[in-house]
């Protein structure tokens, strides 16, 4: 039974990836989860410099979801390379580094630094974080911006380049196309949905940042649709995510068109879920006589049942 998948030149042992921002720098989980058993670990979004992020409250629970406005607190790329990367390597993790910049030059600089570092498997370009005003999302909401960031990074690295798309757009498939044209090796989607929650007693926003990003099971049906749309639009591998909490959810994304998936919010609820989900995938493949998990990708059967008895 073959669970491995390819994302550009990168071969993953299985399609399960810890989602960026939901798994710290990976090392936090090394005592609880066998990092080498994951397809990959997408580490917390990194800027060039260290950042403090937004003041608390940074998260709010919502029905079947949560809002976050962490504001990309982080240690910066240099400390990451010096301190976290060696540890991740020691644990045998396949590391996807999620990078954020406020200018194209910053993305390029980050890509250069990480291309020279040992133990980086791929770059995920965060052009979709809804929680910071500067940069990032500006690129992610404009086709030319997306194209520009991806092609600039493409020029300076041989690592697989994976722009991460925002769902806060009218036509996500056109962004996947722009990424493909600019030389991306894959796209990942979705980042969080811009959203907010209000404390009606104080009439103040529940997040210090006013708005935040919605993630978790609540958004899954929208994310699945977006993966499905992108699958029709591009040939690139798609890394799908948004509300995945169990084996069935993973399968839904694969069948809709994803080659691999990321699990974010559900990891907060159920940090030890990985091995169970993997086992569930194996059981499903056995039951359905599927030899290689790649066969599932985009295998949705949309042939209409016959409804000859009614016109509309």
């Amino acid at each position, binding site marked *: 039974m073959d669970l491995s998948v390819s994302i550009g030149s990168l071969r993953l042992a299985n399609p399960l990836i810890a989602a960026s921002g939901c798994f710290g720098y990976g090392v*936090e989980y090394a005592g609880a989860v066998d990092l080498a058993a994951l397809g990959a670990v997408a580490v917390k979004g990194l800027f060039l410099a260290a950042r403090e992020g937004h003041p608390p409250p940074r998260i709010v629970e919502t029905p079947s979801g949560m809002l976050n406005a962490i504001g990309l607190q982080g240690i910066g790329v240099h400390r990451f390379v010096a301190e976290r990367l060696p540890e991740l390597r020691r644990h045998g993790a396949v590391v996807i580094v999620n990078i954020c910049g406020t200018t194209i030059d910053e993305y390029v600089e980050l890509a250069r630094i990480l291309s020279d570092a040992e133990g980086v498997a791929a770059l995920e370009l965060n052009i979709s974080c809804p929680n910071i005003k500067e940069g990032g999302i500006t690129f992610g909401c404009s086709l030319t911006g997306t194209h520009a960031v991806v092609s600039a990074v493409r020029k300076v690295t041989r690592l697989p380049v994976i722009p991460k798309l925002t769902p806060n757009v009218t036509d996500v498939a056109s962004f996947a196309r722009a990424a493909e044209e600019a030389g991306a090796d894959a796209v990942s989607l979705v980042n969080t949905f811009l959203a907010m929650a209000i404390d009606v007693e104080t009439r103040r926003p529940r997040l210090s940042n006013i708005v935040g990003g919605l993630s978790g099971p609540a958004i899954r049906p929208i994310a699945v649709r977006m993966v499905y749309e992108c699958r029709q639009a591009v040939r690139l591998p798609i890394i799908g995510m948004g509300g995945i909490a169990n084996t069935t959810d993973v399968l839904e994304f694969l069948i809709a068109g994803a080659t691999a998936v990321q699990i974010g919010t559900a990891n907060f609820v159920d940090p030890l879920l990985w091995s169970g989900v993997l086992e569930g995938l194996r059981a499903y493949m056995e039951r359905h006589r599927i030899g290689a998990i790649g066969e599932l990708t985009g295998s949705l059967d949309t042939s209409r049942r016959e409804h000859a008895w009614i016109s509309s």
Partner: protein
Amino acid sequence: MLADVDATVLENRRLSEHYSVLVLDAPPIAAVTQPGQFVMLKPAQGSDPLLRRPFSVFEILRGPAGEPAAISILNKRAGVGTALLYDVEPGTTIRCLGPLGKPFEAVRPPAEAWMVAGGVGLAPFVTLATRLEELGTPATLFYGARTASELYYVELFEALGVRTVLSTEDGTRGVRGRVTAPLRDTLSATPDTTDIRLYACGPTPMMRAVARLAADHRRPCDVSLEQVMGCGLGGCYSCVVLTTLPGGTPHFVRSCIEGPVFDARHLVWEALEG
């Protein structure tokens, strides 16, 4: 070490309209929990509410052979999750992840340990008092609540050899007023030569006041904070508190893995809500 247990509710003792003690069958967690550590409980099946909730391990309960067998939680209704836990019936299973967080460091004799608890802030102190008893450290509990009927488990602490100083806001038991009043008085009456470490848990204003008293009297003070926590494992960066080292710049640290216990002097108290 870390375990995620489908824990059966063995008992759910309602202490009052707001408080209950939930006993959970969780031997692997009971076996390794250190004083002041916490667990993350999933209050309901399904995804509404979605996230787990952090709770201090209240008691470690032992089986017939003395082996750690179960833990209890002192649960206070605050919102949807704690209300669901308050209502839960024995026999139900609840997912329970732990133990988590940095424990209290119990001082050794001849130092004394003074615990200061406000309301449900009592929760982390049974495990600490147990450790203190093992070490032979003289221990005092300053414990305040709204009213006499909300002062729970005082005898348990006394049985552990803890001197208790009680207060209630309505004066129905112990000193009338805030718990910080008897603490202030006792601190003032204690000679500098006595080596005392303070441990505090309760509402933020209470802990802030205790931290100030500790600073005034130059006593070391550890506080156990209750930040909103998304994951409890360092994954989400939701639970941060602003800390600062003498002369350093303020910096957000994750209270789930760098806390929940902090040296009161390292916290930027003005930045804490409440």
